[in-house]
Structure formats: C-alpha cells, structure tokens
C-alpha cells in the first residue's frame, strides 16, 4: 500500500493525527504549498487513509470605496465637520458647490436620516453628530476583524453598509484533515524516503535510479484515450475490395464522372425510351459530348437493322445519345475501356462514385460507391462467371453463395448472386451476367465479357453495422474516432 503513495502523500500522512488539523497548519509542518497539501490530502482521502472536511466561512470586507471612507470618514461625517467649522446654517446650493452634486447629495441625505441636520427654506441647519455604530463597524472591518461574529453583533449596521456598497461579504472555505485508523496504522510504518515519480534525463544521467525506488502506479486507474488520425472505415472497406481484385490479377481503371448518354446507356443497349433514362432517375446536364467513331453500329443494333437481333425498333436519336449525365453506374467506365481495349485477355475493375437522382433516406443517397469487375476472353462462359463470383465473394468473407436467374438490360444470361449471412439468411448482393452481343459486337469486342457489380454501401451496412447510409458521408466525428480499425466480426 505504501508503495502507491507519492512522497507528498507520505509527508502529509506523517503529520496527521486522529484529530482535525487545519490545512494551513499541515502545510507549515510539511513545508509544502497549501495547494499541494490539499491535493495530497484528497488523494489520501480517496485511498481511505484520511478524511478531508470542508467548512464554509463568511467574511466581511470593505470595498475600495469602503476603504477610502474608513480612512477619511463617511461622506456625511466629513461634510458635517467641515460645515460645522464654518456656520450652523448654510444654503444647500453652496454645499453642492463645495462637495459636488453627487457626494453633496449623499451627505445631505444621510445627515438628515441620522438626525444630524434638518432642511428649512433651502438652508441646511446643523444639529449634533454623535459617532454611530456604522462608523464603529467600519473601523473593525478596516482592522481586518470582519468574521462571522460581527454579523451577530451589528447585523443592522452591516446590512446597511452592504446596501451602501461599502461592505461586501465573501464566502471562504476552510479545510480540516484527520487521519483514519488505517491512515494512522500506515503512517507508523512509513519511512520517509524520496521516490522517483517521473524518470527524467537527469535521473538517468546521474544514475539516481540505482538507489531510489520507483513509485508504483495504480495500473487500474483511468487514462484518456489518444486521438489518432484514421482512414475512413468505408474507405478501408473499399481498399479491401481493391486488394481482392488486384490479388486476382485485375487492372484498376478510372473514368470521368460526366459521361454521355451514349456510354452510360446506349452502348449498353438500354433503349432510349427506357424508364431508367428519364429525368426522375438520372442527373442530366446542360451539355453534350461528341459521339465516338462507329457509333452507327450501336444505332443499327438499337433499330434492329442487323441480322442477329431484333433490337428495340423505332428510330435511335443521336441528339439523345449526346446528352451528358452524371454517370449512373461504373459500367459506363468498363464498357468504354473494353471498347478501347478489345484484345483479350482483359481483366479490369472499377470502384468509384456513381450518381442517381433519388430522394435521400436511410438506405438511399444521391451518390454512392459501386464496384465492378469485367473479364473478357476467348471461350469464357456462365460457369466461369460463377467461378469468378464464388472466388470474389469468398475473399470478401462470404463463403456460402448461390446463383439465381436475374435481369439486367445489358447482360444475357443474367445472375443475381446471394450470400448466406448468419442471422439474416440468403441476402441478394449485387448483380452479374455476360454482356449481350448487342453490347459487345457493335463496339468491336469479339469475345464474351463476364461482368459483375455491386453497391459497396450494402456491404458497408452489413460489415459496419450501419443503419443509415448518410452516416458514411456526413459522419459523426466521434464515430470516426471510435470505430475500430480492425473490427472483429
């Protein structure tokens, strides 16, 4: 026990007994400052070795004005004496000239109140001015005797002086400390010797540590946690997915946020009257992009003027295809990359932000991150798509996966992968498929393209236990500080 006492605590404890002692007295005995003594006393109190008691005391003292009056006399006294030396009947106007408007007024008022003078026809007539109790109290306070006792004896005068702003009361605390039984027992055992509390360069250099003891810490006492810089938990998840793709031999690709409708929709065989292309789902811009070479091939496919598909029929509008949008999916980036890199094998991925014109709520935000992987090569088929999906999701931590037929406008066959999550069952996570020939052929891509994608925020909700996606983008800083870098699931 004594090992956890600081030298100050030991000193203070040594000077305590079972009866109360004033803190100032202890400070004197130990040679410590009053503050240090008090601090050590409270530490001893925490440890059950001493008892600290606070007592409140009221003390009266003079204000700055009061001090002046104590030296020179109250305004009415000074006024009375000065006037009395001249005459016992003086015009009021003359008094105010002598003492000033304010002080003269105060003096006349108090002289009248105390019965020292009376006023007749604008003249002050002086009577007699015996020394009052208030003047006695003023003197006592001037001598520093303003303890509580004075209040009991001269309550009326004190209160009047306080009203006049001459006296104020102050509350002070006095501290008394006594040792407990345990304290006394320990006190008897303590040998006062100096301990090392903080190891310093001096102590190391001088080798003092060789003959001094180290004060022991209470290892269970609380310490504040450190504030550290951290990567956003969502970004960490994104990095994890990037690593998976990179480790599987995929090349990372990026592209512009602004895409023409051509790359965002038409190249992906989305009919121009498709509901997803309407204003209410897509952010359109007031600008256009030029169409790429060979765009006519895409036009032909849409209009059904090729032999391998019926297409959508109708007339495909170039103006419509030129209109710029904020990309609604990363597929706008992957398809463009494939069109520009048609030589197999291609394994590419894109993780980036996409935009949808959707009302914000806990599961919908107008921008969010999407992940997409594509594989293009000779002889690829649905079973290989399943193979990639199984491998990819397993590396993400989803070991059980199954495949359901799905529908996406630009893939055929289409797949909806589902993963099994303890407590939630089979959860649909993303979409996949083989790009339609209507997509690949017009762009000069000669081999099958396997593709899959998913909204990462879905995974973030599962992995970070989020109930509201908005927290990712408008974070509570306390959440960023406290969310573990390595969350064990």
């Amino acid at each position, binding site marked *: 026990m004594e090992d956890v006492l600081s030298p100050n605590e030991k000193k203070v404890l040594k000077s305590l007994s079972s009866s109360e002692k004033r803190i100032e007295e202890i400070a004197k005995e130990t040679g410590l400052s009053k503050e240090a003594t008090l601090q050590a006393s409270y530490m001893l109190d925490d440890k059950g070795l001493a008892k600290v008691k606070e007592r409140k005391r009221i003390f009266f003292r003079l204000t700055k004005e009061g001090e002046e009056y104590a030296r020179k006399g109250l305004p009415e006294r000074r006024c009375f004496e000065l006037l009395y030396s001249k005459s016992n009947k003086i015009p009021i106007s003359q008094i105010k000239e002598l003492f000033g408007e304010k002080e003269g007024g105060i003096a006349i008022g108090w002289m009248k109140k105390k019965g020292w003078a009376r006023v007749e026809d604008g003249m002050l007539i002086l009577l007699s001015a015996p020394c009052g109790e208030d003047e006695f109290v003023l003197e006592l306070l001037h001598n520093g005797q303003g303890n509580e006792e004075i209040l009991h004896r001269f309550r009326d005068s004190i209160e009047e002086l306080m009203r006049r702003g001459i006296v104020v009361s102050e509350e002070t605390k006095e501290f008394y400390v006594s040792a407990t039984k345990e304290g006394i027992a320990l006190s008897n055992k303590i040998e006062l010797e100096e301990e090392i509390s903080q190891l310093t360069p001096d102590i190391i250099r001088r080798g003092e540590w060789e003959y001094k003891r180290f004060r022991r810490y209470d290892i269970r006492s609380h310490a504040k946690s450190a504030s550290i810089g951290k990567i956003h938990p969502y970004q960490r998840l994104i990095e994890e997915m990037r690593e998976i793709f990179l480790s599987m031999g995929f090349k990372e690709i*990026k592209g512009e946020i602004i895409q023409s409708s051509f790359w965002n929709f038409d190249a992906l065989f989305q009919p121009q009257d498709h509901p997803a292309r309407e204003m209410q789902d897509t952010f359109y811009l007031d600008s256009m992009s030029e169409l790429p070479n060979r765009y006519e091939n895409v036009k032909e496919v849409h209009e059904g003027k090729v032999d391998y598909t019926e297409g959508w029929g109708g007339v495909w509008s170039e103006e419509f295809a030129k209109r710029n949008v904020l990309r609604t999916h990363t597929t706008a980036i992957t398809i463009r990359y494939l069109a520009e890199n048609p030589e197999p094998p291609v394994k590419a991925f894109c993780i980036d932000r996409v935009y949808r014109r959707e009302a914000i709520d806990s599961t919908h935000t107008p921008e969010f991150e999407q992940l997409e992987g594509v594989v293009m090569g000779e002889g690829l088929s649905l079973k290989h798509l399943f193979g990639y999906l199984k491998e990819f999701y397993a590396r993400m931590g989803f070991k059980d996966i199954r495949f359901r037929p799905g529908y996406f406008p630009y893939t055929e066959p289409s797949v909806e992968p589902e993963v099994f999550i303890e407590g939630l069952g089979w959860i649909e996570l993303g979409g996949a498929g083989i790009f339609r020939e209507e997509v690949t052929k017009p762009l000069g891509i000669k081999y099958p393209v396997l593709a899959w994608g998913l909204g990462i925020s879905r995974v973030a909700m599962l992995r970070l236990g989020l109930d509201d996606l908005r927290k990712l983008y408008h974070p509570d*800083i306390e959440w*960023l500080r406290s969310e573990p870098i390595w969350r064990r699931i």
Partner: protein
Amino acid sequence: MPVVRIEYSDVEELIGIDIKTFLDRLPMIGADIERIEEDYVDVEFFPNRPDMYSVEGVARAMRGFLDIETGLPKYDVKPPLIEIVKDESILNIRPYIVCGVVRGVEFTDSSIRSLMELQEDLHWAIGRDRKKVSIGVHDLSRIKPPFKYTTVPANFEFIPLDFDEPMSIERILKEHPKGVKYGHILEDFDRYPIIIDANGEALSFPPIINGVITRVTEESKELFIDVTGTDKSVHTALNIMVTSLAERGATLEAVRVAEVSGDVMITPNLSAKKKRIKLDEVNSLIGLKLGVKEVVKALERMRYGVEVEKEIVVHIPPYRADIMHSWDIIEDVAIGYGYENVPCELPNVFTVGEAHPISIAKKRVREIMTGMGFLEVMPFSLTCEKIHYEYMRRKSNGRETKVLHPLTQEHTMICTDLMPSLLHILSLNKHREMPQRIFCVGDVLIDEKTIPHLAFLSCHAEANFTEAKSYVITLFREIDTEFSVDEGTDPAFIEGRQAVIIVDEKEVGRFGEIHPEVLSNFSLDHPALGFEMELMI
C-alpha cells in the same frame, strides 16, 4: 418492378403443387420473393417477363418448370365475329390497335382486381407508362359492334369511368385524375383518339380512360379488349392479356381489324414465332456439354415448343416479349437446366493486377494525412451555391457543373473545391471534442473534368497560419516536391494570413486561416485553418 400477389389457393388450383415446393423453386426461375405471409406471397418479377405479371402467367411458367405440363401452351382462338374499323385520322396520333374477345369469364372480386393489376403492370413494363401501349377492357354485353377507332375534337363528350356526368375531352384532360396524369401523351394534338360503338357510345379514350358504359363487374361474362399504341408491342400486350384469361378457362375469339389501306388483320395472333439455335452456341455460352435431348428438355420446361432438325428450331410462346437474340433463349436453357446445376470454374488465364496511378496517389496521401493526426471524411460531391460560394465568401467563376432538375435545394451542382463540404461536416460536429482535424481525397469537377483534390481542416482554439504552414511543409516533404508560396487573395481566408502554393511556376493549391465570417456562416465558433490542392501535380 411489379410485385404480384400470389394466393396459396391459386397455387394449388392452377399448378397443383404444395406451397413449400412452389416457394423453394420460384426464385430459380427468376423472381425475388418480397414477403411470405400466411395465405399469400408477394413476388417481384423482372421487366423482361411481363407474361409473369399475373398469377395465371406464373402458374403457366411454373407448371413447366416443375415438369407438370411442359412445351408450348396451346390456345384455341375462334374465328372473328366482331370488326373494328380504323379511321385515317388516327394514323398520326396513335396508329396501332389490336383487339380480342374473351367469352365465358367467371369473375370474382379478386380476379377482377388481379386483371386490373396485370393491366397496370403491362402499362408500366411494355407501355412505358401508357405512352407506347395502353389497354382497355370492356364488358362486351353493353355495347354494339362494329366498333370504330377514330378521332374526335376536344369538345366531344362522354361519361368517363369514376364520374357520373358527361365530360368533354377538354375537361377530362384538366379534371379527371387520369387525364391530369396521362394528358401529356396527347399534348401535341388537337384531335383525340376514341373507340366508339355502332350507336356512337364511347368505349374508350385511349390512352387516358374508358367510358363508364363498359365498366367490368362480377356479372361481366364477355369481354372486349383493345390495345392501342405507337408500335408493334401492342401484340405482346394483347397476347399476355388474353392468354392469361384463357388460363382460367375462358374462350378466346378473334377480332377483325380493318386497316385504312383496306387490309384486314385478325387479332390476337397467337402463332409461335420460330428461332433457330445451335447446340454449340448453347454449350459455349453456358460452359456445359449438353446433348440435344437435355437442351430440348430444358426448353420445354421453359414452355418453348421445339423441333429438332439440323439445328434446334425453337417455337416461342406468343406471350413472350423478351426474345430478340438467340442468347435470350440460351439463358432460358440455363434456367431450365437449373443455375444450381451449372458448375463454378475459374479459367486458366494469366493476367497481372495493376493499381491505377490516382489510387496509388490517394493511398499515399491518406498515409501522410493520418500520420499527421487527421481523420478521413468522404462527403458528397453534390452541393449547392449557397454553401459552395455564399458561405465561403467566394464568387462563382462559371467553371462548376450544374445539374438540370435538381431534386433538392442542397444538391444543385458538383463541387469544384472540397473545403466547403469539410466545413459543413465540422458544423455538424460542433458539440464534439476539439481539436477536430479532418481531410478528404476526393474528386471535384472543373469545366466538366474530373480532378482529384486533397483538402484538410484543423479546428480548435489555437488554430493559426503557422500550424497550417507546418502541415504544408511536412506534406510536401513527404511527397518529395519543392514548392514556394505567394500572398493569397481568397476571400474565404483572412487577408495576410493565407498563401497560394506554387509548384513549377503553377498555382496548385492554397491554405490559410479561415475567415471568421465563413466560420460564422457554418456556425462554427472555433478558429480553423484550411488547405486545398490538386492531387496529381
């Protein structure tokens, strides 16, 4: 996407299978089960299979999928007794019409509702919200053939559904809920499509509303169905409607449509279109080695008719709207064969993984910033002029990207700087412990180009220019780049306490003490320093 409510009593009656098997197998034909209740299930079907937007359509598909009844469904269509004549004036407005008659219908309250739901779902999926296709269903006993599909002026009057007094077309478009909702489809015209009977009674004002006279009730036994529109998908919609009713035991009867040219078309046309597929193509797309027999079996399960010649000749059911390419059929082979029976295999192709230079740069900067004690944030890039310019005491230089038709006042443009969004995040965290140091590596749009930026803020009682400068010096040391500074004039910072950063004689960023007015605009009461630069310098 349309959600179809399937009652278990219908599953037993129309498919003849127990509910558990039904619910187990249903997702594997391509459906999302939304909700399983005590006596019904809500199922979402995909937009490529509008023929499954009715209980009858689901039953038809599932009978095949569960080997109860496979191959092409057969529907008898009796020869036409009724004629509809097309007027020339309709050709520029809504030229396509196909019709059918259904007799011997037994309606209940729920089967009428189910028919109306199918009609609405088809309006959405095939009809593009009635623009391309709209459907009218009429009680045939109330009207007298032959019918006429023609046009009328805006003052033409009839009693529309849901009202009990005659209204002019003009009033319907202004006051009737359907007129208000769909009137835009006809806004360019001064004559309006109408179907009238031999007595001049209005059956329908497509694509807006039917006349009240032909309202379908539980007593209705004979139906006349019209489908009007702007292209040939009217056929698919009609075929789905009539075959769905035939599945319940009704009798189908054709209608003569007299074209303006004098030709006559008999509808519905329920003959199957044929398409050839190659066994090789099937196997190479799915990655299997199926024989012809297995492919035929899978196709018949998916309700195709099949003839095997040199190639496989597939007869497509007349209600299928989605078969435009041979792969559409091959996907059905895979579904019929069962996705669960397709193996998972990784091809043996060698490729090398490669990170994008921007990602590499972002990752390194994240390491530097977190090392200096900053927390990463990832705000939206959508913002508004008020936060981006007004709050920042800045003026637009016209290089930002505005979105057309913003959904909210807060998201009208894409940011050109990240700092306003960082300040916004601080304003949401005023009550949290100081100091607060945050950073962001994100994309901004300048002149419609995507440009990666880095920005950071440090906010606490003693934040000042010197602190900012020391971060800047450290950052540039860590990215191994020489820089110089020049006096800055950005109104978002305090004058004389800000600098621009110059690398290779080009201004790449700026930093300084945030102006107190900016802080107040974000209702922040602690000083802050800010920094922003282009990432790829």
